[in-house]
């Protein structure tokens, strides 16, 4: 894997070279937080950020996406025959995605790109997007990527890893796509600063203090965890606002809704949330997850148990800490993960009194 040095003086020049080739996205400061946005003419990504408030998953999995359409006008020959809305395949490049958020995309791949069925909108978005990650030198107190199979310099899901080395960026080229973008930008100065990169990696990893334990999750019986008494305590404060699911880089649940404008019908794929009662509400009125306890339990059991059992890819969480940071009632996935991981038979007996 080639290491390239980018003098910060050449940063803007390179981005200008990329602009005609790619639709660029990067973190932009908005009032008190950063958000990934399409970079306008002349606009540069602001890389002086901890992490964005929302994960950049919407660049490849939009919050709302029109997938099918047809005419409802019965005078037209093909009325009421749904057709796929051809996606725009303009290449896009995301500058400054954090390694945690990039590795989340590889977990979403397990849902949207399977051997049995593939989501063509996801596949197209993934293929047309190149990810330049920014290694994380300033992890926050809520970050725990290192205990969930990642790290502040993790390379999963990235095409290029950028490391801020004071007056320059070190760019580790990880894929063909990454190499093509580096070439397009004219960033070609090979570097042998591997030792520096490794030193920075070690230092960043040491700054992550928060730890979750996941080693026992796989071995604990689903139904015992499902029936654990702690769900009552944890869900007591939950207001089912859904903030956690919207911020989360690994939450993928979605809804399908039809919209009609004049004589055109459009089928949309929209983010949804397991925190909302309507998510599972049957037409009959019956709701299998009608209480907030059931909904909160679903979210954490899905991430920390069902996913673990199903995919053998660890937990469905990359340790970005957003939900911990933004939950209005301080529900903490680290605490829940540890409670689940240490849940034992003795606890179950106590629970049954």
């Amino acid at each position, binding site marked *: 894997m080639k290491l390239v040095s980018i003098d910060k003086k050449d940063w803007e020049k390179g981005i200008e070279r990329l602009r005609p080739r790619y639709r660029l996205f990067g973190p932009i400061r908005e009032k008190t937080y950063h958000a990934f946005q399409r970079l306008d003419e002349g606009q540069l990504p602001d890389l002086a950020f901890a992490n964005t408030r929302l994960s950049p998953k919407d660049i490849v999995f939009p919050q709302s996406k029109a997938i099918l359409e047809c005419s409802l006008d019965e005078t037209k020959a093909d009325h009421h025959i749904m057709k*796929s809305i051809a996606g725009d395949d303009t290449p896009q490049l995301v500058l400054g995605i954090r390694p945690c958020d990039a590795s989340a995309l590889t977990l979403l791949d397990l849902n949207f790109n399977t051997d049995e069925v593939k989501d*063509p909108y996801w596949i197209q978005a993934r293929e047309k997007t190149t990810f330049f990650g920014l290694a994380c030198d300033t992890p926050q107190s809520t970050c725990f990527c290192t205990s969930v199979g990642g790290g502040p310099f993790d390379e999963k899901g990235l095409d290029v890893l950028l490391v801020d080395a004071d007056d320059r960026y070190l760019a580790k080229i990880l894929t063909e796509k990454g190499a093509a973008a580096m070439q397009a930008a004219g960033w070609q100065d090979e570097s042998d600063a591997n030792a520096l990169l490794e030193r920075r990696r070690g230092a960043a990893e040491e700054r992550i203090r928060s730890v979750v334990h996941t080693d026992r999750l796989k071995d604990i019986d689903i139904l015992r965890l499902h029936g654990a008494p702690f769900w009552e305590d944890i869900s007591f404060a939950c207001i089912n606002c859904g903030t956690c699911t919207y911020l989360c880089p690994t939450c993928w649940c*979605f809804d399908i809704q039809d919209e009609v404008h004049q004589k055109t019908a459009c089928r949309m794929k929209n983010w*949804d949330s397991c925190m909302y009662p309507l998510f*599972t509400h049957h037409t009959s009125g019956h709701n299998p997850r009608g209480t907030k306890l059931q909904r909160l339990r679903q979210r954490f059991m899905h991430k920390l148990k069902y996913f673990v059992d199903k995919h053998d890819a660890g937990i469905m969480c990359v340790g970005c800490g957003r939900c911990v940071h933004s939950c209005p009632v301080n529900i903490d996935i680290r605490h829940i993960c540890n409670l689940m991981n240490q849940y034992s038979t003795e606890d179950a007996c106590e629970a049954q009194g």
Partner: protein
Amino acid sequence: MQNPYLPYPVRIDDIRIATEDKSLKTFKFVFLDPDDEDRFAFRAGQFAELSIPGVGEIPIGIASSPVEKGFVTFTVFRSGVVTTHLHNMKIGDIMGIRGPLGNSYPWDLLAGKNILIVGGGFAFTTLRSSIVYMLDPANRPKFGDIDVVYGARTPGMLLYKDELVAWEKRSDINMHLTIDAPAEGWQYNVGFTPPITEQKAPQGDENTYAIVCGPPVMIKFTLPVLEKLGYAHDHIIMSLENRMKCGFGMCGRCGIGKELVCKDGPVFTLDQINHTPREY
């Protein structure tokens, strides 16, 4: 790449009122592109999304049988936005069908076995598909005894009455029809499905499987009866329902533990269901 969200265009070829209260209608669909019928090849017990552009989609069990060619049928209860809209549609209207979706009844496992079918109310659609499949001359020799217990509130609420009467007359299937209370002209059983099952159904053994489909209250009282008759939990086969959107395991809402009703089901054995959170 195949787009799993894209329905096959179909034309409504026929609409029949299926029950006396008119709350159920049976829709017969013909594929606009005849090749789509081959692409839609299904097994009894699978479902599909009926897709009405501009309105939405609903997951409904396939009521026609794989051995019936040239069309597919669905019997639909008028209940929500999409089903109400569908009930107001007319012959000749164009819409879509997306599928087939889900697993099916385990036909490989059921080959050579005696089959008990217990159905109630309007959950008889995929059971009808299964019966027609098993009674097909090419398939009937593959199965042992076939018993069917089917109950509804009144004679007029039984689905597919003409076929039920025809099956009553056959010697290669034992029909046990029942209604909740006596009615004029009714010549079969009277009583709820669970007690009639207890009286009429064959004993369970290694070579006998029960397929149970019905309203929750029927399921609740039928399962203990089947246990009493000696059916092991892995010999009791059920079909679950949950709210669904995509139907192919991505949108996340129909999960019961790590299983998804749309993709890993809707057909599960009671044994499997016992090992999963009952969130259906």
